[in-house]
């Protein structure tokens, strides 16, 4: 496959490109779903595809295909070359410089040999055990959307005309359960999930099922509270989404277009002094780790916010050139097209307080366990989302709350982060501990 990628690059140059880059991806997926103790869905398949992006001077063209036959590859190259005709000269377009290219050495533990060898029966049984644990937690868990076991193995290949050629393999498996709790007229669901590079890294199915059930149960019989201003605590699963908003705001493409409330704020205080946000694509075994980014630049560790001060944006080569900076190795794309920007393992550093201490210090506030909606405007920082969770009364989680909104401006939320928990866990490529925002508007009755 690496040869094929090199071959595509060579053919593009022969067809008139002055530079070219080729991505090839291969993957095998498996999924088993068990619902109400019966096997419901089973899926297994593999696919692959190739993409090429070419430059002719400062003009670009791109194409992709799932047809890797010789005719398919010939068509792929021809399509990309043709398209350079319709684009404009872009003074900032181009590949990374040779000295920027490279790959991290050493075993990043992105692929586990146990994943492709797992027996189908074991995978089904694992899902069955997780759902069984959820269903037997409490008689109010009387229904379920099932438990799923998913696994994936993949191979990622990238080559360009400046001499880069690299590949890496990945694997993951995940187990998730979605129980439904019912009491009288109230019906609520929630989920819990465990995800790892290999089967051995998964949490026990019984634990996953039990946590999912407890989460669904605690949402029963919710109240819609009065409209008010109050402190809001985000549990880690939701706090992650706030770190995701920070990513959108330091995304190099948004920054050069001035469509981010953090554009032009490098070196300024943008968050409470206790806040440090890091993007690290080099931590072995984690989900945001890779040896090189999608332009062939080595992944690295970038401090985004340090003790409240904005230190760096996340950049690919293009955004870096637009801003007069250097790439941070955050290029990301599918099979083809101009590179976008992605994150490695993006997280907020943990603080010292336990979640119990944070909740314990609040007389009247909202502990948010779920947010919903598209009400985050990165241009202005305006934040307005649907939310549900538990009400905090006198330092205790008192009752379930739903059908309310939480709103503020992200600038104020970051500056107003009053507490950061010590419970940081990587359950995906974005991670955050429990967070407390001093005040938000809760829209309810």
């Amino acid at each position, binding site marked *: 496959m690496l040869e094929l990628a090199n071959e595509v690059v060579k053919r593009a140059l022969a067809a008139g490109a002055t530079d070219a880059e080729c991505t090839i991806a291969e993957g095998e997926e498996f999924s088993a779903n068990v*619902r109400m103790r*019966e*096997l*419901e*869905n*089973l*899926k*297994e*398949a*593999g*696919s*692959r*595809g190739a993409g090429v992006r070419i430059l002719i001077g400062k003009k*670009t*063209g*791109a194409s*992709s*295909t*799932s*047809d890797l036959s010789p005719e398919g590859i010939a*068509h792929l190259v021809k*399509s990309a070359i043709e*398209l350079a*005709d*319709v*684009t*404009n000269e*872009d003074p900032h377009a181009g590949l990374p410089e040779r000295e920027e290219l490279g790959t991290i050495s050493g075993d990043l533990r992105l692929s586990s040999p146990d994943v492709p060898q797992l027996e*189908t029966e074991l995978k089904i049984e694992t899902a069955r055990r997780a759902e069984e644990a959820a269903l037997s937690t409490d008689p109010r868990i009387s*229904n379920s*959307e099932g438990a799923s076991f998913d696994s994936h193995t993949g191979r990622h290949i990238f080559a360009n005309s400046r001499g880069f050629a690299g590949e890496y393999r990945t694997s993951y498996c995940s187990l998730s359960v979605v129980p439904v709790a019912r009491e009288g007229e109230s*019906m609520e*669901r929630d989920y819990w999930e465990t995800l790892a590079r290999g089967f051995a890294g998964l949490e026990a199915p019984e634990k996953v099922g039990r946590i999912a059930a407890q989460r669904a149960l605690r949402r029963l019989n*919710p109240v819609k509270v009065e*409209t008010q201003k109050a402190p809001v605590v985000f549990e880690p699963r939701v706090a992650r989404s706030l770190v995701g908003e920070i990513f959108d705001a330091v995304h190099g493409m948004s920054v050069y277009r*001035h*469509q981010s*409330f953090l554009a032009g704020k490098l070196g300024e205080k943008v968050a409470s002094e206790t806040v440090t946000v890091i993007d690290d694509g080099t931590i072995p075994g984690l989900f945001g780790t890779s040896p090189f980014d999608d332009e062939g630049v080595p992944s690295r560790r970038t401090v985004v916010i340090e003790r409240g001060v904005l230190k760096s944006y996340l950049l690919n080569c293009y955004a870096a050139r637009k801003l007069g900076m250097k790439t941070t190795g955050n290029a990301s794309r599918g099979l*083809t*097209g*101009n590179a976008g920007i992605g994150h490695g393992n993006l997280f907020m550093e943990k603080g010292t307080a336990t979640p119990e201490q944070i909740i314990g210090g609040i007389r009247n506030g909202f502990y948010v366990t779920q947010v*919903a*909606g*598209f*009400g985050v405007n990165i*241009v*202005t920082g*305006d934040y*307005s*989302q*649907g939310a*549900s969770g538990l009400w905090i009364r006198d330092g205790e989680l008192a009752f379930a709350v739903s*059908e*309310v*909104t*939480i*709103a503020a401006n992200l600038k104020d939320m970051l500056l107003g982060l009053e507490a950061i928990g010590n419970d940081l866990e990587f359950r995906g490529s974005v991670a955050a501990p429990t967070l407390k925002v001093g005040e938000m*508007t809760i*829209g309810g*009755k």
Partner: protein
Amino acid sequence: MQFSDSLFATRFHITRQDLEKYLSEALSHGGDYADLYFEYLLTSSISIDESIVKSAAQGVNMGVGVRVIAGERTGYAYSDDLSPEKIRKAAHVAAYIAKGPSKVEKFDLKEGAHHNLYPVLQAPTEMAFAERVDLVRRADRAARAFDPRIFQVQALYADDLRHVMVATSDGVLSIDRQPLARLSVSALARVGDGPPQRGHSGGGGRVELSFFQTEKTPEHFATEAAREAIAMLDAVDAPAGEMTVVLGPGWPGILLHEAVGHGLEADFNRKKVSAFTDRIGQKVASELCTVIDDGTINSRRGSLNVDDEGQPTRRNVLIENGILRGYLQDKLSSTLMHAEPTGSGRRESYEYAPMPRMTNTFMLAGQSDPADIIRSVPKGLYCVSFGGGQVDITNGNFVFSASESYLIEGGKVTRPVRNATLIGNGPEALKYVSMVGNDLKLDEGIGTCGKESQHVPVGVGIPTIRIDRMTVGGTA
């Protein structure tokens, strides 16, 4: 289109005998039903940013999905290689789900009649790129010309042409050619060095390229995006709490998609996990509300001649004068629930098994003059555009996020307000609809609906409506 003329027969030399053979293979371990979904997809996209056409891309993606149903069980496999060995291998993998003798013995594939909702002779995807590039250039120019305070414009044009073929063990053989095109524009406005505001607009459908030259031009979308960005420059904080909300016509129909549409998809109701479970015949909305899901409207983004299980699409009444009438069905759920098919089985691509999905979801027009609706509100919020929505089908709570809205004060639309999310409960929210306008409008053709990580194009529509009580998530 006839099977013999289809790309699958002419280019890939697939015969009816092949299809029958693959279906037999899929049912070789037993099962009640099997189907094959062949797809050949061509895509293209062009984008402009800072008045520079920075990217143009095209792609080819093809494959076949094989599904076997045995009772409530589904086995699924796919291949991106259309060679006989690979298709047979996929059929064999999908067959793993079933045990015992098959109930299906003979396949007699018949091509049924179906709609011709998008008689597009030449799909945009098949045209020269140069003509399509012009669309984003024109959009960029028009947005910038709208007002000197517009300082950033991005426009994206994308189209695809999907050839599909469905063959089922029920004997359905169905072929369709599905063109789809869309143009979207976003603009940023600011005064001096002040904070920027954003505006967005877009649209399209299953249309020829001439649609963008004569009906909805790049200038139309560009002006709309620029207008929204400029309007938001004066925005004040949105209110918080329960109040009267008036939705403008068209895209605000996303309310229906979230509040009722998803909750009425049959899979959730078969499993009894929807807030609408077992509520057919009950009152779930004010009697002014009749909500339809119609996959048969000409040229619409959400329309299909046949669904992704080979069933002709239909006009389905979901709510009639406030009473819940029906669910949206796919093959699996309609069989298990002994219900009529509704032509609602859809999938993102050959990599996925189909599920019940919406097509074009809208509320029928009522009697009220839209101006009277606004005049009737002493204090409230008037929402004309939304960013997107989401629903928890189990408790029924839905949100939809307003990107352009205004205060109503003393029966008049006054100041624009900042983005705010609205929240409500599906089976309850529409009970508070007290006025329905006579101005039903469908959206411009920009919607994409996500469910269990599968994305499909959809449409929505609504007349101006007044909702007496809804929670608004502002800060004021």
